[in-house]
């Protein structure tokens, strides 16, 4: 049941006498304004302001409250999101507050300065005096209001329900609002602020949690999940369970009740025209085409190779012929003879021959055995090594060093060769074993290979995904400072420790390291950062080997290529079905409002609603109130505020409070008659009493008595 704004301009402003107060309920979600003594507020709208620029004229305009989103197309709203005057539940942005009051008074029908009615305006419990004084200043200076009174919205709601007979003079008010939740005890009809308790969790957090969860689960529907839409979903579908654990177990088991409780939101979807699956002839034709192309490529490669071999052979023949000719020529004539061919000396020709033979062998695919060359003069080369240093000349010492170096390097090379040889033997042996296994039982072998292949491919894909930025299906990149996204948790922790150490120091001076304790920082970091990088290469090589083996033995095997990079994108070779456009809300229905009772689910380290009631009663008892009073409090617990309208809230609260109160205390949880409007209604009925007149303060009071008096100003709610 989404709230509806009411912003029709009222026409009877001038008919109302100046003594009739204007009552304002300034809530973080909605702003309500009306006349005292009436049964409902005249104007209601969302307490937000937007300042977009008009696309054509470029003028910046102000839009208050929510409005038809279709009309916004004339405006450029990229840099102006909706802004609220509130921070938590305290007003801090008075420019925005002024826009809101402008709009409110304008719609109330005000048309001549000043606003000549006393004003009763609500605020949060224990509002800081800075906010209060700025609000008073705004109302006095800019609107010319004669007198103001401040009251707490939860208190008004409780008093109103007390008048209606729903709750007693002594009781507890649990008010769950948009950004905060309060628990205020009432003794003799007056709120006891010393025992009041506030948790910074409210309807906003529930909606935000639901929005995040759904966006993470369905990232490709993120545009549909606007904040307003999610709020609608929350109001329609969310509920509070009596026992979270048992409810969740129902869903985990996949029981039929769980199916019934899961709601499904079908997004508009048009089925794509279904293509005929390619018929057999098509497939055959395509494979034949591929075969032919492959064949052509292979032929081309062969042709190139053979032509290269021919060329090299010709060159070799030419060079050999040249050498033969040289033998017949005289020694002195060599240079002139060779000048024509381009070679300077015999050695050059010989080295050229050697090179050409090498490349020829390579082209033909033979092993080249050039490594035999240095082995020839092994014993001769290392003559100097055995002679001790003092018998040699300096040059010979240098020579000896060089020989030593050569010897060690050649020995190293030999050892490497030996190792490679052994590895080859090992691999041969393993291959033989594999072959044997294959011959014994081909089917089992194939199965094993397939399993191994699947595992390896999964591992490799995962690593790839972790290494690259997972940005493929998503435009919203939250957080992530460039490199920060690619680091794993340990590396991130390390960076965080280092940056905090760097920032902890004062500006300008870097005093890290002066104290010995600073270095203990490095002990906190984990040392196993580098194990990630070496693994993939081995895995990928193994994967390639297994794939090739499978291809040999199994004609129907096709190696899986990395088609889809992120598992959440619908794979492209499957046509999109109706189910892809459905958003299922199952566990989230009761998981989100659970944060009201367990704020640590979203990281807020405070007590939940049921615990807060206990804390409040405890604080009351420590203010030396008599025990009977405190026990009687739980007999009349009123829940009010927009965020308490979830089905199941009263039962859960009752169960929770029963757990913390002594056995046998009477516990009655009562719902406010109209959780959303009660604060305004209570304020309106209060403003119409004589009592109100004595509690307002006017401009002269405000300026004479000063801030200290304003701080201690508290409304008295009962006669």
């Amino acid at each position, binding site marked *: 049941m989404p709230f509806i704004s009411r912003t029709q301009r009222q026409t009877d402003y001038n008919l109302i006498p100046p003594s009739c107060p204007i009552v304002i309920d300034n809530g973080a979600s909605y702003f309500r304004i009306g006349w005292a003594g009436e049964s409902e507020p005249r104007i209601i709208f969302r307490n937000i302001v937007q300042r977009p620029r008009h696309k*054509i*004229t470029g*003028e910046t*305009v102000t*839009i208050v409250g929510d409005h*038809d989103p279709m009309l916004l197309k*004339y405006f450029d709203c990229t840099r102006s999101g909706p802004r609220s005057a509130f*921070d938590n539940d*305290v007003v*801090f942005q008075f*420019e925005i507050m002024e826009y809101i009051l*402008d709009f409110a*008074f*304008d719609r109330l029908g005000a*048309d001549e*300065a000043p606003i000549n009615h006393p004003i009763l305006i609500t605020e949060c419990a*224990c509002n*800081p*005096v800075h*906010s209060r004084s700025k609000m008073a200043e705004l109302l006095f200076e*800019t*609107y010319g209001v004669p007198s103001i009174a401040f009251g707490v919205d939860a208190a008004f709601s409780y008093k109103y329900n007390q008048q209606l007979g729903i709750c007693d003079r002594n009781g507890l008010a649990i008010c769950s609002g948009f950004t905060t939740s309060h628990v205020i005890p009432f003794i003799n009809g007056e709120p006891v602020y*010393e025992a*009041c*308790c506030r*948790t910074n969790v409210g309807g906003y957090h529930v909606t935000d*949690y639901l929005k995040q969860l759904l966006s*993470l689960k369905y990232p490709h529907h993120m545009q549909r999940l606007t904040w307003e839409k999610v709020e609608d979903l929350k109001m329609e579908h969310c509920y509070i369970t009596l026992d*979270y654990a048992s409810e*969740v177990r129902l*869903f*985990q088991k996949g029981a039929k009740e769980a199916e019934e409780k899961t709601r499904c939101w079908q997004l508009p979807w048009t089925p794509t025209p279904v293509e005929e699956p390619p018929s057999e002839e098509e497939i055959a034709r395509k494979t034949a085409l591929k075969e032919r192309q492959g064949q052509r490529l292979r032929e081309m490669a062969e042709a190139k190779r053979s032509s290269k071999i021919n060329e090299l052979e010709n060159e070799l023949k030419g060079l050999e012929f040249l050498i033969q000719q040289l033998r017949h020529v005289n020694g002195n004539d060599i240079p002139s003879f060779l000048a024509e061919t381009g070679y300077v000396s015999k050695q050059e020709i010989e080295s050229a021959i050697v090179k050409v033979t090498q490349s020829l062998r390579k082209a033909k695919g033979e092993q080249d055995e050039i490594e035999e060359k240095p082995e020839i003069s092994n014993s001769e080369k290392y003559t100097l090594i055995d002679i001790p240093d003092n018998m040699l000349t300096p040059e010979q010492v240098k020579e000896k060093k060089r020989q030593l170096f050569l010897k060690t390097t050649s020995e190293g090379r030999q050892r490497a060769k030996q190792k490679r040889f052994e590895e080859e033997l090992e691999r041969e042996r393993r291959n033989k074993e594999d072959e044997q296994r294959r011959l014994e039982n081909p089917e089992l072998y194939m199965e094993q290979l397939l399993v191994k292949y699947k595992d390896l491919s999964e591992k490799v894909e*995962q690593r790839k995904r972790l290494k690259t*930025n*997972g*940005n493929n299906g998503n435009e919203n990149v*939250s*957080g*992530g*400072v460039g490199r920060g*996204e*690619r680091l*794993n948790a*340990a590396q*991130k922790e390390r960076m*965080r420790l280092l*940056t905090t150490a760097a*920032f902890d120091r004062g500006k300008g001076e870097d005093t890290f390291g002066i104290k010995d304790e600073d270095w203990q920082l490095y002990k906190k970091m984990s040392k196993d950062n580098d194990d990630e990088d070496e693994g993939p290469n081995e895995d990928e090589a193994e994967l390639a080997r297994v794939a090739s083996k499978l291809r040999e033995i199994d004609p129907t095997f096709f190696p899986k290529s990395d088609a889809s990079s992120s598992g959440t994108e619908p794979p492209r070779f499957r046509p999109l079905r109706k189910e892809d456009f459905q958003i299922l809300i199952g*566990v*989230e229905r009761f*998981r989100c409002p*659970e944060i009201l009772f*367990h704020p*640590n*689910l979203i*990281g807020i*380290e*405070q*007590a939940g609603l049921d615990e*807060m009631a206990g804390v409040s009663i405890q604080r009351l008892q420590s203010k030396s109130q008599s025990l009977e009073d405190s026990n009687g409090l739980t007999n009349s617990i009123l829940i009010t505020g927009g965020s308490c309208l979830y089905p199941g809230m009263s039962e859960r609260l009752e169960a929770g409070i029963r757990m913390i109160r002594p056995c046998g205390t009477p516990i009655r949880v009562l719902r406010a008659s109209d959780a959303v409007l009660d604060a305004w209604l209570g304020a309106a009925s209060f403003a119409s009493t004589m009592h109100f007149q004595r509690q307002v303060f006017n401009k002269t009071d405000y300026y004479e008595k000063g801030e200290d008096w304003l701080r201690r100003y508290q409304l008295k709610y009962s006669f």
Partner: protein
Amino acid sequence: MKCCIKPSEDTRFFRFILMEQEVIESEMILPTHLSFKKIQMHEKYPKGQARGRHWKHLKQIIQAENYQNYPADEPNYVNIESPPSMHPRKQICDITGFEAPYSDPRTHLRYANTEVFKLIRSLPNEYVQRYLALRNAAVVLK
């Protein structure tokens, strides 16, 4: 786009505003001059001036209040806040919402069973950080 003159009581402030017909009819734009105000917005916040009216945020307001100078049993905005919860922390799986007795040492996410674990291990880092941010447990490099 028709041009329309906004009706205004005070003829000195005659604003010729060019706007689409339906936008004007819906009256969703706040007029710039309001007759019941003693000081108009554009006088208070003149155009052209950097609108950096730095309003104090809540934290600064609370600091400026100097609550430590006042007796500690007087209720003020800070001391009515709830204490941390005494109940044992509820541990639910970050992805599905089921009960989660296990947590992944690499990403610090909680999970309920092996299928969820496989899903976690295949998530790109961005999603992991967003799930952690739900719990306020993401590493913020400030």
